[in-house]
């Protein structure tokens, strides 16, 4: 293959996926743009945004990859039920990872802000927001990933190429929307 052929093929393959994730990212951005009041109320919330978004991609992208590989190997069936130990373990572990790392991210963010001498909301406020957002977004993304991977597989699509784009497009929107919801809830309950 010449340089031109390689470049054209790579361009054509990636353009639709990237365009789709750009649309998802823009909607996430609109939600973030509407969060200005909450960002001002809860100092340090913006510090958490990249970490929480990346966690969604890392944790639930990995869940999708794990389920995809297991389907290819015939270890699991693409059926929705609560009796498969492997699927249950993979989902429970992803949720545990997703919720725990959100809480840890909030603790690390408060420590980091204290170290560089920048203002931050109380530790309990940021941890509560991160845990609630982590849990709710985890549930939603698990449903999205499992559904798309299973339904896609049953229709003869390769789950490996489905999970990534689904997580990148839905992950940002779900991640920011749940962060906004969690922040409003915690502020309403008197935190901050």
């Amino acid at each position, binding site marked *: *293959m*010449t*340089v031109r*052929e*390689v*470049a054209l*093929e*790579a*361009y054509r393959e*990636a*353009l639709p996926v*990237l365009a789709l*994730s*750009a*649309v*998802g*990212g*823009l909607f*996430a*951005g*609109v939600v*973030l*743009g*509407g969060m*200005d009041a909450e*960002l*001002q109320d809860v100092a340090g919330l*913006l*510090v*958490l*945004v*990249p*970490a929480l*978004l*990346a*966690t969604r*991609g*890392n*944790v639930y992208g*990995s869940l999708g990859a*794990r389920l995809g590989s297991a389907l290819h190997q015939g270890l699991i069936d693409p059926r929705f039920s609560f009796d498969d130990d*492997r699927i249950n*373990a*993979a989902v429970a*572990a*992803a949720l*545990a*990872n997703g919720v*725990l*790392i959100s809480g*840890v*991210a909030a603790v690390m*963010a408060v420590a*980091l*802000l204290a170290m*560089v001498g*920048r203002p931050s909301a109380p530790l309990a406020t940021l941890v509560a927001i991160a845990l609630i957002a982590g849990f709710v977004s985890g549930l939603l993304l698990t449903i999205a990933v499992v559904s798309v991977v299973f339904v896609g597989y049953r229709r003869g699509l390769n789950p490996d190429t489905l999970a*990534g784009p689904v997580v*990148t497009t839905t992950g*940002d929107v779900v991640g920011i929307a749940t962060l906004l919801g969690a922040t409003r809830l915690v502020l309403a309950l008197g935190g901050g």
Partner: protein
Amino acid sequence: MTEFASQWSVPGIVRTMFPILIVLTAIELGSGLVLDTFEGTLLQYPSLLVLVPVTIGMAGNLGSILAARFSTAFHLGLLSFTATDDRLAGNAIATLALAVTLFPLVGAGAWLLQAVIGGTALPLRTVVLVALVSGSLLAVLAILVTTVTTYAAYRFELDPDDVVIPVVTNVCDVLGVVVLFGAVRVLV
């Protein structure tokens, strides 16, 4: 069933993944801190705030797609690390072309959405320019980071699938914020 125990048990999966998640979170908090330092500008111009997740996401995606392609080529024995390698050059050109195609559209989209919802304080031209400059610079950085990381994985005999994609995606996320910060500083 040791395979089952380690790969398909909750403690097994958490033990494998959690240390990596902590490292990646620490890296991402670095970019969060950069965002925090220009929070004032972002709140003043909401169209720029709209650009934040999409810039981070696109930077990570450009890097991860390139990394996945390099890893596959590497596994198939099709990649050599020389400047004249067709596969290396072709993929690098495609990454740059993708950024130059999509980022101006992303900038225009961010401006348009914000204009519809809450009104904008910045002209369309400025937001498109910020997106285009950030995107082009990010493409160049994504190419550099991916090439260096894939080469390092090859030298240290690590499987590029395990190492390169998470490292490249998260490093590109961080660079996304840093580059956006730089572009906003210079252009706004």
